[in-house]
């Protein structure tokens, strides 16, 4: 990938006697759409506020193009923010809100007008210049907030759960549009969300966080298919998480049965956790599988059925489009690639 634009090195943050960030190391690259994903209170917003300059890190370094900016005030950083509740100035109209940054820089009025209308066009609000921002819908306010930030031509745009207040349909639309805008302006977007689907569908890189610690950094596909630990597997998508042990490379044992797999690099007989995604498990005739059980329940979910199969050791969750009656004896089948072996979490 291209050049690093922001580097976090051993960043910590304490509020009173509570440590909300416990040593964050993260590289953010140019033109990257990076998402900080995690449950509320995991520290993702704090990272964003430190990058924006609203909070100072307690320890560690924040490098921007290789220079430490942790003491630089927000108004001197080439970074702009789209706030969670948009924070538009209620006493200014759409044009003046968007032009706020350029007015401060004493840019020529005709240049400002030109840039404002170009920005409004980019976010799909052409001709809205004279409108009162307090009378706009949530989605429109959101777009004004994006235009107001982007007009300053920042190197990095920070977005703090910007889609949280929108309804489901508008949210989908804005996800698509944000991605489009990011491609068009070609700058780094750092996006904060607790919505895993949002993170997976928009990002180049997803950073999964919990309790002030980064759990995993990777592409959406990697994060989903190769979760590094139980938290990531559990937080992103549905999963069956099974304790087992690694007999040797490419051979794992769980539920008392040995399975061939594709994972390597564990110690012999190391205790591990195995992830089986519900949609990766097939229901077959009992005699065609090593793992047997009976259907305990079936729930219709729209696209698929969610079936719980009770085996000797545990219940498995399976997503399938086929109907199976409760009480039926079945076998569970999955390929070598469907088994994802993870290191066991310490606690």
């Amino acid at each position, binding site marked *: 990938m291209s050049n690093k634009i922001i580097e976090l090195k051993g960043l910590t943050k304490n509020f009173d006697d509570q440590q909300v960030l416990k040593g964050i190391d993260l590289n953010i690259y140019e033109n990257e759409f990076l998402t900080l994903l995690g449950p509320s209170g995991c520290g993702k917003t704090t990272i964003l506020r430190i990058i*924006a*300059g*609203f909070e100072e890190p307690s320890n560690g370094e924040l490098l921007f193009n290789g220079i430490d900016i942790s003491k630089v*005030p*927000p*108004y001197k950083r080439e*970074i*702009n*923010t789209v*706030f*969670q*509740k948009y*924070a*538009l*100035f*209620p*006493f200014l109209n759409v044009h003046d809100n968007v032009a*706020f*940054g350029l007015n*401060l*820089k004493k840019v020529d009025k005709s240049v400002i007008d030109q840039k404002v209308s170009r920005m409004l066009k980019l976010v799909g609000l052409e001709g809205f210049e004279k409108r*009162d921002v*307090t009378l706009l819908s949530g989605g429109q306010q959101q777009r004004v907030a994006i235009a*107001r*930030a982007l007009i*300053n031509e920042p190197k990095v745009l920070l977005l703090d759960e910007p889609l949280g207040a929108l309804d489901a349909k508008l949210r989908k639309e804005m996800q698509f549009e944000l991605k489009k805008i990011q491609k068009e302006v070609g700058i780094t977007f750092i996006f904060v969300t607790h919505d895993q689907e949002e993170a997976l569908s928009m990002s180049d890189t997803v950073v999964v966080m919990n309790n002030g610690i980064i759990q995993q950094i990777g592409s959406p596909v990697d994060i989903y298919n190769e979760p590094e630990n139980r938290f990531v597997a559990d937080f992103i998508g549905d999963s069956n998480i099974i304790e087992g042990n690694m007999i040797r490379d490419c051979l794992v044992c769980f539920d008392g049965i040995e399975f061939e797999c594709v994972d390597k690099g564990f110690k012999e007989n190391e205790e591990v956790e195995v992830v089986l995604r519900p949609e990766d498990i097939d229901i077959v005739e009992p005699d065609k599988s090593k793992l047997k059980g009976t259907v305990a329940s079936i729930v219709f979910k729209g696209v698929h059925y969610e079936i719980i199969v009770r085996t000797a050791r545990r219940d498995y969750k399976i997503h399938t489009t086929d109907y199976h009656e409760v009480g039926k004896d079945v076998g569970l089948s999955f390929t070598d690639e469907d088994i994802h072996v993870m290191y066991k979490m310490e606690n």
Partner: protein
Amino acid sequence: MKQFKNLVRPYIIWSFVLIVVPLFLIVLYSVTTGGNSLVNIQFTGENFKKIFEPVYMNVFIRSFKLGLITTVLCLVIGYLLAYFISRFSEKAQNILILAVTIPMWINMLLRTYAWISLLSDNGIINSLLTLLGLDPVSMMYTDFSVIVGLTCDLLPFMVIPIHTSLAKMDHSLIEAAYDLGANPFKTFWRVVFKLSIPGVVNGTIMVFLLSISSFVIPKLLGGGQYVLIGNLIEEQFISVGDWNFGSAISLLLAVAILIMIRIMKKIDPDENGGA
């Protein structure tokens, strides 16, 4: 809500007797002659004409000047104080606002007498000055003493509305201004002050109104020769006994204040549909 409607009636009667009727009487008095005798009234414009005699006009001008000075002083001190208070935690803010309002719990006369004992020729300040080997300064019965008294008395009326509008301000707007490149000074002028204008307008109207119509403080701190509109009205009703002239002055003052309020409200963005 409907069943509570009848509860409003006593209040309507009450306000009719105590507000509407007296107001009507003042209007009536101001355009008639004949003092308190309502039997043989005669309509006249003489009362209003009399106000424009230089003696009385000077009182008006002096009062407005004093009211203006007091209001500006209250605005500057009050804004700084309100801004300072709004920086604290919510708990501390409550205590500080309480401290600002505590003087209002004490009788105004008492507060004014306290100023007399501070400012008088052999008062506390002059005693201190003498102790330091400086010449005593005569402060009582001047514009200075009246302005000091009025400013201190009316300061809470400025601090509270400004503090309210500062305290309810969305902090993310300030962060947004920083984020867009405004330094703290520009953020204050372009965002914080703009958002506090409703409080400033309300405080200014209240202080101006109260200062221009006050009569106890000018009387006590300004001495007998110090005549403001309030004193003039009081004099007409209590000592001179010309209720008609007194009513005319009151009416003119009320109209002047109404006009000023209208002008001030024009500045308030909320009153102009957010434009």
